């Protein structure tokens, strides 16, 4: 139903994502991860947070997670405030 299709839910529009990985990641990875904000969580995990332009960009980021052998825990799309 295109009429009721939520604009913000369009997967090919920019949206904020949170990628959670295992281990505390150094801040120096920020440029590598296209500027995502890197925050450590108390339980030893790391959140990569930031706007991702579309699905292709998201997959590109996940590939980078893969390439450095970072265990991936979750990927969450955050509704923009």
């Amino acid at each position, binding site marked *: 139903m295109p009429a009721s299709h939520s604009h913000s839910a369009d997967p090919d529009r920019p949206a904020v994502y949170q990628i959670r*990985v295992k*281990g*505390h*990641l*150094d*801040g*120096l*990875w*920020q*440029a*590598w991860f296209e500027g995502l904000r890197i925050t*450590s969580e108390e339980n*030893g995990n*790391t959140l990569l947070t930031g706007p991702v332009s579309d699905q292709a960009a998201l997959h590109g980021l996940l590939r*980078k997670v*893969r*390439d*450095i*052998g*970072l265990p991936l825990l979750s990927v969450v799309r955050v509704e923009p405030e």
Partner: protein
Amino acid sequence: MPLTLLAAKLSLPPLRPKTVLRPHLIEQLNAGLPAGLTLISAPAGFGKTTLVRAWAAACKRPVAWLSLDEGDADLAGFLSYLVAALQTLDGHIGTGALGLLRAAQPQPPTESILTALLNDVTAFHNNFLVVLDDFHLIRAKPIDDALTYLVEHLPPQMHLVIATREDPHLPLARLRARGRLTELRAADLRFTPAEAADFLNQVMGLNLSPDDIAALEARTEGWIAGLQLAALSLHGRTDPARFIQAFTGSHRFVLDYLVDEVLERQPEPVRRFLLQTAILDQLSAPLCGAVAERDDGQAMLEVLERGNVFVAPLDDHRHWYRYHHLFAEVLQARVMAELPDLIPSLHRRASLWYAQNGLPAEAIRHALAAADFDLAAAQLELAWPHTDDRFHHTTWLAGVRALPAELVRARPVLSVWYAHALLATGDLEGAQARLAEAERWLESGDPVQKPAATQAATLVIVDERQLQTLPATIAIGRAYCAQALGDGPSTVQCARQALDLLPADDQVRRGQATALLGLAYWANGNLEAADRIFSDYTRQLRSAGNLPDAISTAFVVADIRMALGRLREAAGTLEQMLQNVVAQGGSVPPETADLYRGLGDLYREWGDLDAAARSLLSAQELGEHTGLFDWPHRLYVAQARLHQSQGDLEGALQLLDQAEGLFVRTPLPDVHPLAARRTRIWIAQGRLTEALAWARERGLSVDDTPNYLREFEHVTLARLLIAQHTSEPGAGSIREAIGLLERLLSAAEAGRRLGSVIKILVVLALAHEAAGSRPAALGTLERALMLAEPEGYVRIFVDEGPPMERLLHAAAARGTAPDYVQRLLAAFHPAAPAPTRPYAAQSTSAEPLSEREREVLHHIAEGLTNREIADRLYLSLYTVKAHARSIYAKLEANNRTQAVAKARELGILPRV
């Protein structure tokens, strides 16, 4: 690509002197050999390459190894590397597939390339492994599809090993269910506590307590890269326990923690070197020296290799190294964080080094990575004249397409190369647009239209010689387009312009321009001039050692000579070129298919339909996997004519339909338009309504002025009028048909096109006969016979069927050319088919041999070796061996002697 770098991709990584032996994994791998496919799928740093390398050494099978990198993500590139890897086992594997890959655009279907390759593999005797390492680097849909095809058609002797960080797009569930897949995954690859102990204490020479080992094993979860880095950090420490405590107590990502530790322990110059060269896929001392701007590249690499972490040698000569991908990623992240502004200049320096060292593909890749489009454009411009097997037109085109359009437009030389690349794909419109842009640039007196002065200066320096001759190169492109679009006057004008502009010593381009001129003469009916030009050009190409192009021009010469009615000279041209192919030895150029095609057509005309069929079959076998993109059309047309001569009109129509779909616009003049061929068959079938619709659509009239390019259509129109008159006297204008044919005849005589003259005389004789004037018909036929006899024409008469047969009987009664006419009359009623051979009658279970297998069998019986048979039949040795095996299987024989004896017994070979 210099041999060293290619060799590095194809050579097995050197074995490490000390590694952890993993007998349980090797055992699992050995047990999986019957499955056909082994997948080693795990994240970075799990020792995949090391394990496969160890297995390769242990499994006693020959190994074809291919280390992939991101630059190989194009299908053509991937397949040529795959062939190159297989050729490390045997240089003959994949020559056909390579021919296909080398072919002009568009690429032939991937299946035909893979089939050609797999056929060669099937003929290989030993079982072997093919390893595709780092397969995740080349994820692309066409490559996934190719791999799926490969896996589903895997010959039993080939075992495929894929090492990757992510599962490939293969039907894994189905393969697992069928037991056709063995997998090792992260859980299998982790070091067990015992292996960790072995690694840390034996391989890395530490002396750690069981508790320390257990702690490290737990912290890294058996991740081999983590353990290796930890070992390096521990090396030379007096208090390992404290380091281990700090490490295990930290939440930091293992890699961050340990790489910091390792980097901190490097002297500053080494650390800097690492960061500066992290962008490189392969490392050599000179390349690293250029990128890091220092002259101790080799010393640095050796320090790093001795340090044993960051680099792995790619060859035994220690010329090429690479960083372990995992470390390269970490280093790159650090460069981005610490020296972000430096990255473009690092790429730029790498690009320049590669360019200076004759590696255009890498040079262009780094220039694009530097986002230095001017540099990329300059390198693309320089690279075009040297595009070859390893640097494909597709790669080149992809590079040009990655550039901003206005930048290409501002570079006339590049625009013109772009146009020529598009011409090869048949995109005439795209090519013309690029040529027009280049012309505008050249003509523009307005400096504002030109790029900034500095860039223009770079451009001129880049390829000054090409810029000077650019108007000539544009003119050649224009002539090509004009000729392909059937605009003869423009072709001549542009080709002459090119010749005026080109220096006398530019043989190659003068040859191209002259050839286009020759094609224009041909299209214009000036066949003698065209014949001279192409005969000269063929000689020139042959003496320059360019056999493939010489073959292509030879068949043009043969086609022209057939139109000139010099059948024997045409055959001589083709046969002589075949002898040249044999004499040069080595692999048979795919263009050879056209020689057989031409000979097939000649044999058909001479009435030897069996020889014609054999020749066309040879053409098909040679040509079907070559991807000569305009060739299938010509073959189907030749087959259609043969079917027509055999009386199979429906089959001929179907072949013409197939041919129509494969028509590609090239500069070869379309002197026998396919629609007119089809109409002739309709006329023979009595489908006159359809034929009339064709004539209307083509706007043909009996009053048209004769013109060579329309001669075939006009003769077809005359045939239509004759058929109309015959089926319903008075309906067609038979007088006008005769008038048209007489004018066509005068034009053909004036142009000294004997082939046309004979054909027109034959139809004119039939027209007179239909009009009821037998004396005129016989007089005309007599002229045709006089001209045709010396060249041995048969089908030109016989294909006309009963009306011609009646006329020939009348001619025989008058004593015209008695021997020749008798021969022709006999050809109307070929001898009844040979009695069924005992072999075919009695062998209910045995499969009959194919035409080709019979041929091979005959040569086997003559005592020829496989190599000799291959040379004799212009086949690859592998194809001959495959035929021989198939013959043995069909005859249930185990060797040559048995096969020959069995064949004699069955009557396939004459009994002795």
